């Protein structure tokens, strides 16, 4: 299967390069775009492994929704590259520490499990459907994990709404419904008084 291999090395090459670019390019928009490219290449690799459901879901959720919002936010930031670089020396020790910890963890994982290569998944028959397989596994064997993940996400949603949905007194928010409903008495007070000429 030379074509599959060529495609695999192509996609993984793009994946590694774009992942490196995410942390090396200066412009945050470009970094976000490289992140999208690496997600996409990862999806392509999964597609080669015949995991089309997972691949498409990765594109749908991360490329189609999450990264759009991410870009959305990044675009509105006015990041000054120079001022970001100023703190480089100050944060260097902490950064090196985190990087070392991650490297050790990765090393431990590889050390315990070994570096054996996984075989390509065997081509199943036409009737074989990844989508229904995943569905069956999710709703039988991994039901608890699945439900707990759902609850965690729900909590996050509610927390986010609760944080943003408070009434802030300092905003000059207009309520068009109240403006439409306004009565004359609320705006206008007719005062009876003598005219100036009469007084004299």
């Amino acid at each position: 299967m030379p074509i599959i291999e060529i495609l695999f090395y192509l996609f993984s090459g793009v994946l590694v390069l774009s992942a490196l670019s995410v942390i090396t390019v200066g412009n945050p928009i470009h970094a976000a775009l490289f992140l999208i490219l690496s997600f996409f290449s990862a999806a392509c690799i999964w597609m080669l492994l015949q995991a089309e459901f997972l691949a498409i879901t990765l594109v749908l959720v991360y490329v189609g929704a999450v990264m759009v919002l991410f870009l959305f936010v990044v675009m509105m930031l006015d990041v000054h590259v120079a001022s970001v670089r100023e703190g480089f020396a100050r944060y260097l020790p902490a950064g090196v520490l985190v990087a070392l910890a991650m490297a050790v963890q990765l090393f431990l994982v590889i050390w315990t499990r070994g570096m054996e290569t996984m075989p390509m998944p065997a081509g199943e028959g036409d009737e074989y459907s990844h989508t229904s397989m995943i569905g069956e596994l999710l709703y039988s064997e991994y039901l608890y994990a699945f439900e707990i993940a759902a609850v965690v996400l729900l909590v996050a949603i509610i927390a986010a709404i609760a944080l943003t949905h408070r009434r802030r007194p300092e905003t000059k928010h207009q309520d068009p419904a109240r403006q439409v409903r306004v009565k004359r008495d609320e705006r206008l007070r007719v005062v009876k008084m003598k005219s100036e000429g009469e007084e004299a």
Partner: protein
Amino acid sequence: MIDQLLTLIWTMTKIMIIILPVTIAVAYYTYFERKVLGYMHSRRGPNRVGPLGLLQPFADVFKMLFKELIVPTNANKFLFLLAPLLSLAPALAAWAVVPFDDWLVLADVDAGLLLILALTSMGVYGILLGGWASNSKYALIGGLRAAAQTVSYEIAMGFALVGVIVLAGTLNLTAIVEAQSGNIFTWYWLPLLPLFVIYFVSGVAETNRAPFDVAEGESEIVAGFHVEYSGAGFAVFFLAEYANMILISALASLLFMGGWLSPFSGIPVVGDTFLGEGGVHWFLLKTAVFCFLFLWFRATFPRYRYDQIMRLGWKVFIPITIVWIMVAGVFRVMGWFGG
């Protein structure tokens, strides 16, 4: 190796067989739009180029292609030129899994519906990046509006499709159409009427068409994300928008209106004649009707205010779809419609 090369060439040919008619359909869709809008405004529409103005799309295309492509100062040139292609590619790629008839489909993928959702959700990048790379306030605002709107309505749209998936029990588009077979009342528009309406309205919003066209908003932000585009770049954005509209129409007819199935099948007398047989012509006819709806909406409805668009998407559509997914689940469990 030779085998794989041949497969590649054969697939490329099939892709061209689908892409070319779609492109021509897009060209004539613009003509059709101008005609329909003209008639609904008591005008005549284009009728100068060729008989009945039928050569107008080609005149437009050549005009666009020969115009100068201006890249604004300080624009990000690479992204500026990439953005139109980013918006066009998903719109055309999605046609790979659209079945025109029960045998006429390029890729009969299991997760076809999901693939289409994923691809349509990627179309927003072209708009977002085009808006950002133009280095223009109007374009940026237009791009941000389009992104927020598309992401919001994608959720309602996805939920509307979940109803279809629940009833059909599959993500394969061909199988979804076959699950609807019977007569016109077993098509999913009837059991999923609210989802059908929401799907189509969300489709209008996803493609940034009137009355949801705040991303262009001529009266406020000139032309939105494509203010700075001229010539071929503008033409490609245009092409993508109309290809997306045709795609949404095709999906609406596949998912809710029985695709290539005939509306007369199952009806005693008429159903036994040639009218009762399904075929590509029914699919194209239904798609054309939905395409016409897009234009009819544009001729009729004034533009939504931006906050009202968000309100409609999040506070009206999403709750209704969630309720109706449960209703669809009840249908499924009781075995009332298909399944």
